[in-house]
Every structure is written in structure tokens, then in C-alpha cells.
């Protein structure tokens, strides 16, 4: 009797100790692999902490695995994490199509995540007013200014229909950002502008008078918004397609890097001192 052996190649990705806006290589590599693999093992043994940005990233991972029809097998998740972060990712329920965006919503006194779909969604204002009313008025205004600009970018330029907003207060730092998995910013920019690579497209998008809009042209882009928040001490991470910009406002330092694994979407993440 002959025996047929089938070798199934299954990749395992080990998530970093802290899931947040830093050390994104594994997560990006995992997201990139979803389209080619049927099953992926995700090892959680090192994970100790999920930052607010991590909440949004995990929701994206979940949605992308359903869209790309790749089964994620999560291993070694510490029970404390499951208890602390009751995310859709940790449920046993099986989904054959994208779940309702509301199922991603996460509300805690020190952080929230909203999954928005189908246009401008200002629910975040209620969350801010309810849980973070005692933060500095000017800081909250700056956060809203950035959210509003990024929400519009996600709605106008991304065709993913879904975007993820997070906000949280951790270790006296304010974390917030907007992430989408739509048409990336460089892809949209190259319809109108010429730049040598994706890093330069990202830089270009932060300059005065740059806008990819075709209707209601002559927008202000992100320039004025960024000009207004530069006084806040903190960090800004901007990732789209092959480019990555990390700007440290307090040190007036910028790191521009090519991503090892392409991100088909746009992630903008901020961290400010409270």
C-alpha cells in the first residue's frame, strides 16, 4: 500500500512583545502573506501588551484574513490578554464574510477603537467627550483636527469603505490614529503628481497646497493641520504602500524608510505627551 504524503507549508509569525505603532515588521509581513497563504499560525507567546494602535491593527488583521480567505490560527494567547481586550479576533465565532463594523468597536475608560464604514463618521467625538473630557482643551482640539483630516482622506481617497479610528491614554501619553486598507496614498498621488518613490509621495502629501482631490479642488491637504500640531511634543508615524515616515516633533527628527513588506493601505498614527 502506497502512502501519499502531502507537504503543507504553513507559516508561523511571532508577534512582538508590544503591539502598537512600533516594530511593525512582523505585522506587515503577516498582512502581506495573507493573500498567498491558506493557513497562517500566529504565535502570541511574546505579546504582553496591546497599545491603542495595536487594537486597530488587530482589527485590520482580522478583516483582512476574512477578505483574503486565509485562516489565522492564534496560538499561546495569554488569558489575561483575552480578558483585558475582548476583541473580535479572540472570539470563537466563525465569519465567512466581513462582520458588521460595530463588532470591532472597543470601549474602555482609557482607550477606544471605532470601525467606521460608509462615509464620514463622527462618533469618535462622543467617545472623546464621554471619557476624555478632562484632557487639555487645546490637545483635544488638535486631536480632532487630525482625526477630521484623516477621516476625510480615508473616505475620499481610500476605496476600502472601512477605516479604523483609535484613541487611548497610556503612561501619560496620548495615542491616536486612523488606519485604512484602501488605495494607498502613493497610488492615489501618482495619478496627479510625480515623485521618485513612495517615501517622496508621502513627503509630498504633507506639503502646502497638495491635494489629490478632483472635485472641490484646491484643498489645503494635511499641511495646515500638521503646522498646527507641531507645537505638541510627540511622534508621528505615516505608512502607506512602500513608504514609511517617522517624525519626532520634540527632536525635530525625521526617519524616512522603505517598508520591507508593502502595505496596501494608509496608516497614520500619533503619540503625544499628555
Amino acid at each position: 500500500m502506497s502512502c501519499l504524503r502531502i507537504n503543507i507549508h504553513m507559516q508561523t509569525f511571532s508577534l512582538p512583545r508590544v503591539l502598537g505603532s512600533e516594530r511593525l515588521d512582523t505585522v506587515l509581513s503577516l498582512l502581506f502573506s495573507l493573500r498567498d497563504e491558506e493557513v497562517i499560525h500566529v504565535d502570541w507567546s511574546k505579546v504582553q501588551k496591546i497599545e491603542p494602535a495595536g487594537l486597530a491593527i488587530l482589527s485590520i488583521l482580522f478583516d483582512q484574513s476574512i477578505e483574503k480567505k486565509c485562516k489565522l490560527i492564534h496560538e499561546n494567547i495569554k488569558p489575561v490578554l483575552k480578558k483585558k481586550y475582548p476583541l473580535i479576533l479572540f472570539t470563537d465565532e466563525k465569519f465567512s464574510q466581513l462582520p458588521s463594523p460595530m463588532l470591532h468597536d472597543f470601549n474602555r475608560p482609557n482607550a477606544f477603537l471605532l470601525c467606521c464604514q460608509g462615509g464620514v463618521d463622527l462618533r469618535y467625538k462622543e467617545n472623546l467627550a464621554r471619557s476624555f473630557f478632562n484632557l487639555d482643551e487645546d490637545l483635544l482640539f488638535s486631536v480632532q483636527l487630525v482625526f477630521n483630516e484623516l477621516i476625510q482622506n480615508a473616505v475620499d481617497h481610500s476605496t476600502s469603505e472601512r477605516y479604523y479610528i483609535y484613541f487611548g491614554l497610556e503612561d501619560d501619553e496620548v495615542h491616536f490614529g486612523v488606519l485604512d486598507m484602501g488605495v494607498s496614498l502613493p497610488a492615489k498621488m501618482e495619478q496627479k503628481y510625480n515623485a521618485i518613490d513612495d517615501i517622496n509621495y508621502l513627503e509630498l502629501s504633507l506639503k502646502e497646497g497638495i491635494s489629490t482631490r478632483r472635485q472641490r479642488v484646491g484643498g489645503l491637504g494635511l499641511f495646515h493641520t500638521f503646522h498646527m500640531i507641531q507645537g505638541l511634543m510627540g511622534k508621528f508615524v505615516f505608512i502607506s504602500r512602500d513608504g514609511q515616515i517617522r517624525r519626532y516633533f520634540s527632536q525635530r527628527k525625521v526617519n524616512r524608510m522603505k517598508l520591507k513588506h508593502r502595505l496596501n493601505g494608509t496608516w497614520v498614527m500619533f503619540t503625544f505627551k499628555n
Partner: protein
Amino acid sequence: MNIKIKEIFQTDYISRQAGEKLRFMILKAIQEKKKIVLDFKDLIVASTSFFDEGIAKLVDEKVSVDEFGNFIEIINLNKNDKKVLDKVTDYRGFNLSFKQAHPWRLCPIGEHWVKEHPRSSSRGVSTVVDGHCRKNPKGKDVITAEELVEIANKHFQQIKKLPSTKSLKFEDGNKYDAVIGGWCEYWNNILKPKIDLDPDLIKALIASESGFQAVPKGPKGHKAIGIMQLMPETVKYLGRNGRELKDHFVELDTKDAENPTINIAAGVRWLFRKYELLEYKLKRTPTWEEVLYDYKGFTGSKTELAKKSKLILDGFLKELKQ
């Protein structure tokens, strides 16, 4: 007609689509010559796009600032939203009349007051030109020495918050109370600090600087001017050519600065600039007492003179608060 932005733009008051809707409403009102009030009560817009598309882009529709001012009134706008609106309208060159300065001002923002002055024509005929507003090329808020005096004469009799009536044992200790209260109220309204500047602090500062003497006697070579002892360089910094301020300039010369009314106005304005600089330096909101110490040069100074002067100032502050 009162348009409550929060009700009309319930689900979206941030996007360019929403801004476009607002612009059409404004255009309709102007075309029909109907007055409308845009009420931003209970709302933080925080969107450059909404204000840009809704208001700043009226400049592309050939709407003049005067037309806008005649038919559109903006009320209850949050101070940070006002800054955003100022920024986007400035960017498009649409300097709104609603940015009209303080009600005491003689001219709208973007213009400054020129007092009555003689003019000779080419035919040699000499005429007198009445006081009038003149446009500033960059559209910024500029207040001149003449306007400062006019404002003080007209409005400082009815100031609500005056400093303490204690004279601090100076002969003229209460002589400038209305002027101190007036300029504190004015600059608090214009510059909107997180905590309003208390007139008592200015009174204590003046007591320690000049003892309420308009022309205090100082040692030989002493350059500081007037009741608040402004340095000639400071007088320069407050003007448009001083390269220190971004807006809300005080245009005067060293001779003007000898006038106590003008000197206090300029001194309080300079104190607000010190507040900004100290906030940046300390990376937190400073107290007004810390700003006073900085004004007097105590910050970081360990000299005996600084310690002694600080004690004197603290003494005045304590006495006024009692």
C-alpha cells in the same frame, strides 16, 4: 435667520461636501440680500476643510469681505475654531470683517488708525486730513499709539475688573487703576490666555518697576522707558518690523512709550509674549507670577539683586491679595 450649524450639519460638519453646502447657503443669503446668523453653539468643528470650502472659498465666488459682513454674522465660534478659520481665510486672502477686532477698536483687523494730520497738495495748498483707518499690506492686527490713547479715553471709565484699591504706599498708587484694568481686559479678550491676566499682577509689577512714576529716575545710562520700564528694544519688538510677534502688533516709538497709558498697553502686550516664550521654554502652562519673574529677568538668575527684587515684588503681590 439663525442657522444652527449643529442642527443643520448633524452627521457631517467636517468634510468639504458639508463646507460646500454651507457656502451655497451663504451665497443664497447674499444673493437674496437676507441676513443670516451662523451659530456654532455647542460645537467644535476642528476642520480646515469645512471652513475652507464653506467660507474661505467665497473669495473664488467673487464675494467681497464687505458683502459677507453685511449679510453673515458668525456667533459662538470656539476660540480654536476661530484660529483655524483665521488661518484658512488668511491663506485664501479673504480677510473677514467678522474678525473685526475688539468692539473698542476704531478699525477692523487688517487696518490701523492714522490720526488727523496735515497734507500739502502739489499746488502748495495745505489741508488737514481727518483721522482714518488705513489698510495694512499683510492684513494683520496693528494698533497704533494714537488708537491706544483713543481707546483709553473712550472706554476706560467703565472697566469691570479693576485692580485692588490699595495704593501700596505710593503717592500715585491708584492713579492708573482704570488703565491697568482696561488693558488687562483688552489683551485678555484679544489673546485669550488659559487663565486671564489679573490686574493686581500688573499693579504689583508697576509698583516694583517704577513706583507709579511716569518718568522714574534711574542711574546714569539707564535706558528703560516709562511706568513699566520697557526697554527700547522691546518697543521695537512689539511693532511689525520687530520680527518678534506674529500678530497683534503694537506700533509705537520710544517717545510714545513715555505716555503711561501707552506704556501700560505695550507692557501688558509684552507680558503676553513673555507668557508664550515661557510656555515654550518650560513645556507647560506657566503661572502669571512666573511670567512676571521672567519679565523682570529673575528666571534662572541667582544674584542677590534678583532675590531682593523678587522679595519686593512678592511683597506687593501679597499686599494686594490681602
